């Protein structure tokens, strides 16, 4: 069914035949210098970020992780398909790695692409415990490049992550310095008139929601490969070369909008899986996602890699240049986006008079309509696509929403993966092409297409004022595990009832994002669900054991937006014999 997995199964059966790579990692207290501040944190092999681990598809790897901390640790191999005991989530895959001890991970590499690893213990990851994984494919890549660089982003905060969590719980707006001020109110009056400005404030005030609630944790310094904007990480090139940039967003909280002024970027891979190449001017990378792009600078000048956070409260910057020390211009940060009532469309139980919130969310089926929206003429690209997709959007009735009284964003940019009229829809700085999920097509279908065996609806829920986040209104501490049956294909329906964006990450199994392209739907490990939208993904339940499933925003996961998934049945039910064989074999 899936060649990569079959290769994995083969590796399990014939472990002795697979080439084994052995790697050593130490988990250490390190100092992280962002250029803006120096902060103690956690790193690997003495540095944060840790080293780039380079694996080869088909090999078996053995990774010795030595915990030099005075607390337990763990490493999760984000996006890697492996036996669940090797997945590195304390309490779900294993017991964790106690202080002072060495744990040896052993698993076959059954895939290729760009991934990353990070601690899954406490807040070690936002405190610096992350690194990159690059897996070379067995065959040739379906694209060409002359050189490659990992471009790993993070949002390093001057506060220890435990303190950030505590501050958010004490005052959810602790770090939000983009709130609407008296000055903004007067600006709105002069722009929209007094009554509209007042009604707008009253509507938001009535909900006790903030338009400016886009980035919970501000005040960070964006880092690229551990370097702050001033430290300017630089990748060298010869003019005319094709460069593969492996973007990884290892942030705790920040989404980044990435562009390289002067260069178009051809996206060739998302979350480690090849996609049909799409050339863009800018793209948004969700927390925990990866995108590989190919750029081709033709002239001997410096190009700035500019990554603005989605809420525009910070940025990361690096440079591509023919020689060290060259710098390109650094663009200004664009204006911070504001949420609109459309982004609130998914909220239930909100009492805001004339806004038919429930109706709006029911009518907007974004997962299904993406294809229609992509296609301006309503032509049917694919027979699998619902024929009504194009019209369902046109027919969406927003008349229940009293837009007259609200201040909506201008420009009218739209993206089927954002609520219609959302304030978060990204627009390319140069007016060009901004990547949408709707543009992603698998380069080669990973699984045969089949009907899902069942649908599971997961409402993404939360309470901003309490800074508590949950799934179906239940926090992890109170939740039963989500049970899946080995061999089924589950269609997950994410309904985002909050006003925040949630990057949902299922461990151990692929997330096939429904963009309306049937068997060409892209295969991901992390799926962003924007406020007020419904997004579908399908998962072939082909990995026995128990797995984590959570929002990858560190402080959302820690405050409850987390589930354990138990895969029942399958070859290893009730015991782990199959995996033990691999372990023993690996030693032999």
């Amino acid at each position: 069914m899936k060649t990569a997995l079959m290769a994995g199964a083969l590796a399990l059966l014939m472990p002795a035949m697979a080439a084994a790579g052995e790697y050593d990692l130490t988990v250490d207290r390190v100092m992280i210098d962002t250029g803006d501040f120096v902060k103690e944190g956690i790193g690997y092999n003495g540095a944060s970020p840790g080293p780039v681990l380079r694996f080869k598809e088909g090999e078996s790897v053995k990774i010795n992780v030595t915990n030099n901390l005075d607390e337990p640790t763990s490493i999760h191999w984000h996006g890697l398909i492996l036996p669940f005991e090797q997945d590195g989530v304390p309490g779900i895959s294993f017991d964790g790695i106690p202080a002072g001890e060495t744990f040896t991970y052993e698993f076959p590499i059954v895939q290729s692409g760009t991934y990353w690893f990070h601690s899954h213990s406490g807040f070690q990851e936002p405190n610096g415990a992350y690194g990159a994984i690059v897996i070379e494919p067995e065959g040739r890549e379906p694209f060409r490049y002359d050189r490659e660089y990992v471009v790993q982003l993070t949002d390093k905060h001057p506060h220890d992550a435990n303190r950030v969590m505590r501050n958010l719980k004490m005052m959810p707006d602790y770090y939000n310095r983009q709130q609407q001020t008296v000055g903004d109110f007067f600006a709105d009056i002069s722009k929209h008139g007094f009554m509209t400005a007042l009604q707008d404030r009253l509507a938001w005030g009535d909900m006790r929601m903030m338009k400016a609630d886009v980035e919970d944790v501000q005040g960070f310094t964006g880092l690229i490969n551990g370097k702050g904007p001033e430290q300017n990480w630089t990748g060298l090139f010869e003019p005319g070369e094709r460069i593969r940039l492996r973007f990884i967003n290892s942030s705790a909280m920040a989404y980044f909008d990435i562009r390289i002024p002067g260069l178009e970027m051809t996206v060739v891979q998302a979350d480690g899986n090849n996609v049909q190449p799409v050339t863009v001017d800018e793209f948004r990378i969700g927390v925990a996602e990866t995108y590989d792009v190919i750029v081709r600078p033709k002239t001997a000048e410096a190009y700035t890699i500019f990554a603005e956070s989605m809420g525009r409260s910070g940025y990361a910057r690096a440079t591509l240049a023919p020689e060290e020390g060259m710098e390109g211009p650094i663009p200004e940060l664009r204006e911070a986006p504001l949420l609109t009532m459309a982004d609130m469309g998914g909220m239930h139980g909100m009492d805001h008079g004339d806004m038919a919130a429930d109706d709006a969310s029911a009518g907007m089926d974004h997962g299904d309509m993406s294809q229609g929206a992509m296609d301006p003429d309503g032509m049917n690209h694919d027979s699998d696509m619902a024929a009504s997709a194009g019209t369902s959007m046109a027919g969406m009735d927003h008349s229940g929403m009293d837009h007259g009284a609200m201040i909506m964003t201008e420009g009218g940019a739209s993206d089927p993966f954002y609520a219609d009229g959302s304030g978060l829809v990204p627009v390319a700085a140069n007016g060009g092409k901004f990547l949408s999920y709707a543009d992603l097509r698998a380069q080669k279908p990973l699984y045969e297409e089949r009907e899902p065996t069942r649908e599971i609806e997961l409402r993404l829920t939360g309470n901003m004022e309490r800074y508590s986040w949950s799934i179906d209104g239940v926090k992890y501490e109170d939740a039963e595990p989500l049970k899946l049956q080995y061999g089924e294909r589950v269609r997950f329906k994410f309904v985002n009832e909050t006003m925040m964006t949630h990057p949902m990450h299922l461990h151990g199994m692929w997330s096939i994002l429904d963009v309306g392209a049937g068997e060409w739907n892209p295969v991901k490990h992390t799926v962003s669900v924007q406020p007020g939208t419904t997004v579908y993904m399908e998962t072939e339940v082909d990995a026995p054991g128990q797995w984590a499933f959570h929002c990858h925003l560190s402080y959302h996961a820690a405050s409850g937006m987390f589930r354990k998934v138990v895969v029942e049945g399958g070859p290893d039910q009730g015991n782990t014999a199959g995996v033990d064989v691999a372990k023993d074999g690996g030693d032999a």
Partner: protein
Amino acid sequence: MTVSKLFIAAAAMSFTATTFAAGSHSGGHGGDIGEPGHADDVSRTIQVEMHDNYYEPEAIEVARGETVRFVIENKGRLVHEFNIGTPDMHEAHRDEMKMMVEHGVIQGGKLNEDMMDMGNGHTMKHDDPNSVLLEPGQKKEIIWTFSTKTNMEFACNIPGHYQSGMYGDVNFDSAADTQARAD
């Protein structure tokens, strides 16, 4: 719909012209990249396989004046183009290919021939002598005479394909070239 149809029609009218015009501009004279050849003159056949998204081989050697029969087979699951031209010509052609995708003529693994016909005498046919556009499994031939030595590539200009590396170099055999000059 009406507007976009007009747009396609307009594009279709300029289609063939643009492809060759780009070549003329860069070289200054018409026969820049050579010309369609005759079967009688074919000295050699080169098999080119299209994959997703690359060619095999990724470079070919030709001699100036040589007439080559290309047998091109699409072994991938997506539509691909084989187009002989200069990098500038390819760049100009990419906008047209982008339009064909945007208007549903090329859809992943499918070529909607019916959509090429605009029904008003205009077509969006992709029938320039220096290129073929193939659905998965299709196999076609081009006979081309490389009468001029210039910087040439064969390329797939479907959006994203060239940029991600679906192109090959046309290298002129220098020994043959010296000989040609001696003549």
